[in-house]
């Protein structure tokens, strides 16, 4: 008998045993005979022209096999790294797309920019020899701050963008919004810095490429969230290789959070070099390289305004954002502060008019791209800080002002392009308030005051849009890729099942969740189902895992393939039972003829498909193996309410998160244990942004000041509390699983909730993230001075 209650069950993860015993296989764990090691020589300057590169000394160093520079790559016809999303500006012109050579050609544009690669027998030999490479630079002035990028006289990074502007893009009806503001009773205005973050997956990026002369093929092991996309971009756009000659394997991957979506220079260079030297080439990032080269997140500067009527009803919102792209356009950089940001500004509210203008700029910094949440945390921060501040200014309860503006009827068309299919924001708010015991907050605040602590409470009612889709709409908005997912269900003769998915798990637990979906649908034991992912050599195709899309899109693709298996199984069963196909029903792993006691189990049908003796060979192919592609009709819209309670030590400015409540609506939940884990992780990253994490560059030199974990503060166990979680369920209306996605919610909602709580505790209007002890202390000092004056 199969597992009947798999959906919604906290099945323990099947991937855990290997991880817990050290038997996981991450890219750096893979060792290929004769493998050599690459070390990348990187720019020590933020901006410079390269006058000369002298290779001779490095080439003569012990163990060195090769040294390659941008010139070598150009001679080998290696193209630049592509950007996968074309944004068209308000002027009707396409965004500026500067070349992004895998190794610098003539100029470097951020500290860490790749200048050359040294390949040697051992890693230390490559690193030693790299110091002998002679690179003469002419150092140029650099610009690192978003605010300075378009200033007169700012140094230009790229010839094609002399004002460092990639695009100016807008969404919404500006004149209608302006009109609404002119007649509003109240306007709340805030300026935000959305601090730049470094993803810091604990596994550093790594790539190991090998070339096989016998059949002119390549194999690349790489820490990637989407091996098929990596292969497509690399073969079709950069190396000009035939796609079928390149196999990309993303084995166990130690966290991604967006940073392992992209095609990186190192992946391309080691792949290309493996043929040049006819040896496998391995590169594994040191953490300092991760800081310099993994695509960063956020880095927005925003002015935002909310217009309200006298009752606190939102009339209009106006947002102006400048977003850094960094020095080059990373794979999906351009769509993050536009398509994934401005479209979210309605939040959970009926704000009828919204206008958002986004200016994307180049700066002499590491490229910026999607990092957990990707545009949606920035949007939520704008909306939820504005709403909370408006409530305070208008002396309205922050929950009440939200209630007055909640969307209550679905489907709901926002003024910023999205069509919300379903939701119940009142339910998540109410549940969060109960779980957080908002009613008891006043007493807790008094008690804290008696202990000399300042206690504050803040909300964030977030919405996100997951599983970007459908492909044709995304295409019309500039996407240069499809946004479907593929899956294959291979039923073996014994009725055991191997499932191949184009989604990729790097912590999400697909091997368990997807197996639950398949086993439940087929009515077979979960142990009879294995999930395979992360290998272009085994999986038909895939778009990978990002944007909380795996279950909603990848899971649905698998389900469609399962349904094809069942449909074919019914034909076989009908033949076996000598019944009409239309009379055959499938449930609990058994094919039955309706209204009779005739039945055949799934395994017997599978065996029949492969041993087709008693089989309708004239009408049906043997075998039981189906695949499916699924292209969703809409985004999914997870939403929820977070309540954060903090205590501030006024002596030091330290902030302690004493309670954090999250009530989410992710639609149907397949594995609540895994979902809770995703929320915990997301919340901690969001809390990290609000309290600890800040990527900083030196304004004058362009040097990265937070280039190691000694200076960039990652959340640790003692920075966060145990979380209080609950879920509410409004199933997604347009996928058969009813699921919405849960991977990013925590990181999206948490920053606003934390900052709303801190500003409440301090009694100040605004505070910049991260709320470090010194910033909090200064805010308190300033408040004291203002009071005295």
């Amino acid at each position, binding site marked *: 008998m199969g597992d009947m209650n798999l959906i919604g069950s906290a099945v323990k993860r099947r991937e855990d045993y290997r*991880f817990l015993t050290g038997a996981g296989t991450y890219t750096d*764990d893979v060792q290929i005979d004769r493998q050599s090691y690459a070390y990348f020589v990187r720019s020590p300057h933020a901006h410079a022209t390269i006058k000369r590169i002298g290779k001779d000394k490095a080439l003569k160093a012990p163990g060195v096999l090769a040294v390659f520079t941008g010139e070598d790559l150009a001679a080998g016809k290696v193209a630049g790294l592509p950007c996968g999303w074309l944004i068209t500006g308000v002027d009707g012109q396409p965004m500026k797309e500067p070349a992004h050579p895998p190794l610098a050609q003539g100029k470097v544009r951020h500290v860490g920019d790749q200048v050359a690669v040294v390949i040697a027998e051992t890693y230390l030999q490559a690193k030693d020899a790299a110091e002998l490479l002679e690179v003469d630079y002419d150092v140029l002035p650099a610009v690192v701050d978003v605010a300075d990028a378009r200033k007169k006289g700012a140094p230009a990074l790229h010839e094609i963008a002399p004002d460092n502007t990639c695009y100016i893009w807008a969404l919404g009806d500006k004149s209608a919004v302006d009109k609404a503001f002119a007649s509003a009773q109240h306007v709340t205005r805030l300026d935000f810095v959305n601090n730049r973050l470094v993803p810091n997956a*604990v596994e550093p990026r790594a790539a190991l490429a090998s070339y096989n002369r016998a059949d002119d093929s390549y194999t690349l092991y790489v820490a990637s969230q989407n091996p098929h996309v990596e292969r497509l971009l690399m073969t079709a756009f950069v190396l000009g290789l035939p796609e079928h000659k390149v196999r990309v394997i993303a084995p166990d991957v130690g966290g991604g959070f967006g940073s392992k979506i992209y095609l990186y220079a190192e992946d391309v260079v080691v792949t290309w070099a493996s043929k040049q030297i006819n040896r496998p080439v391995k590169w594994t990032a040191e953490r300092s390289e991760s800081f310099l080269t993994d695509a960063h997140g956020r880095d927005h500067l925003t002015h935002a305004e909310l217009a309200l009527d006298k009752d606190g009803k939102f009339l209009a919102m106006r947002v102006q954002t400048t977003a850094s792209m960094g020095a080059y356009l990373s794979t999906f950089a351009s769509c993050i502060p536009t398509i994934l940001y401005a479209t979210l500004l309605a939040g959970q509210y009926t704000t009828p008019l919204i206008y958002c203008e986004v200016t994307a700029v180049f700066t002499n910094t590491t490229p910026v791209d999607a990092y957990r949440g990707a545009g949606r945390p920035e949007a939520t921060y704008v909306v939820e800080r504005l709403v909370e501040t408006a409530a305070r200014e208008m002396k309205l309860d922050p929950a009440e002002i939200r209630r007055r503006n909640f969307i209550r009827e679905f489907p709901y068309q926002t003024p910023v392009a999205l069509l919300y299919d379903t939701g119940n924001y009142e339910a998540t708010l109410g549940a969060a308030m109960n779980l957080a015991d908002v009613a008891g907050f006043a007493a807790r605040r008094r008690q804290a005051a008696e202990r000399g602590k300042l206690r504050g409470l803040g909300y964030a009612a977030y919405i996100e849009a997951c599983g970007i889709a459908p492909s044709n709409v995304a295409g019309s908005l500039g996407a240069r890729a499809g946004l479907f997912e593929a899956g294959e269900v291979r039923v073996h003769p014994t009725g055991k099942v191997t499932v191949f998915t184009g989604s990729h798990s790097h912590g999400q637990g697909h091997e368990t969740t997807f197996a639950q979906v398949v086993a439940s649908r087929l009515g077979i034991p979960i142990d009879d189902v294995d999930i395979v992912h992360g290998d272009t050599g085994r999986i038909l195709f895939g778009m990978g895992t990002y944007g909380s899309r795996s279950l909603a899109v990848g899971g649905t693709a698998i389900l469609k393939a399962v349904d094809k298996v069942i449909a074919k199984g019914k034909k076989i069963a009908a033949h076996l039972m000598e019944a009409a196909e239309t009379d055959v029903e499938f449930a609990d792993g058994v094919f039955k003829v309706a209204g009779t006691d005739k039945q055949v189990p799934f395994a017997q049908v599978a065996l029949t498909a492969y041993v087709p003796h008693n089989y309708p060979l004239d009408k049906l192919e043997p075998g039981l193996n189906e695949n499916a592609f699924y292209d969703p009709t809409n985004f999914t819209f997870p939403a929820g309410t977070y309540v954060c309670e903090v205590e501030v030590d006024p002596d030091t400015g330290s902030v302690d998160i004493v309670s954090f409540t999250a009530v989410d609506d992710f639609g149907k939940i397949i594995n609540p244990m895994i979902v809770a884990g995703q929320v915990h992780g997301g919340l901690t990253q969001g809390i990290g942004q609000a309290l600890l994490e800040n990527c900083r560059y030196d304004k004058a030199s362009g040097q990265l000041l937070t280039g190691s974990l000694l200076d960039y503060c990652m959340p640790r166990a003692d920075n966060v509390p145990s979380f209080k979680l609950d879920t509410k369920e409004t199933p997604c209306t347009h996928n058969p699983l009813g699921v919405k996605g849960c991977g990013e919610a925590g990181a999206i909602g948490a920053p606003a909730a934390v900052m709303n709580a801190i500003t409440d505790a301090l009694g100040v209007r605004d505070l910049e993230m991260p709320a470090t002890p010194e910033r909090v202390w200064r805010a308190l000092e300033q408040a004291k001075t203002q009071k005295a004056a």
Partner: protein
Amino acid sequence: MPVKVSLTVNGKPVTADVEPRTLLVDFIRAQLRLTGTHVGCDTAQCGACTIHMNGAAVKCCNMLVMQAQGANLVTIEGIAAADGKLHPMQEAFREHHGLQCGFCTPGMVMSAIDLAKRHANLNEATIRAELDGNICRCTGYHNIVKAVQAGAQAMRS
């Protein structure tokens, strides 16, 4: 000039000639091919490389293999029973979903076992404070804390 080093790893004696600058973690991963011990940073912050040396948890990316001369080392590969049965702490991590991508996990488990041995009574605050040498980017620590508490209890019983 290579130097000789002798030590015991997971109960097996090992002798090798090494370059003095060899880090213990590189010796364990590259030479012994015990790849469960991971490298996540280069400044001894992340703790992914945590192993036990003479019964105490250490970060083996931040020491030379020569510093382990004569020492008795246990890596994550030496924690489960010979028949593959998980150690109570490993079991607790699985039971409480104390891991996601698995990369920090070996170091986290090694650190947690050490922690459990050092404290008779582990409350949440102590666990959180004492886990400050291990960084996890996935779990938000919530379930790790629960796992350590349960694992410590199971180790005592």
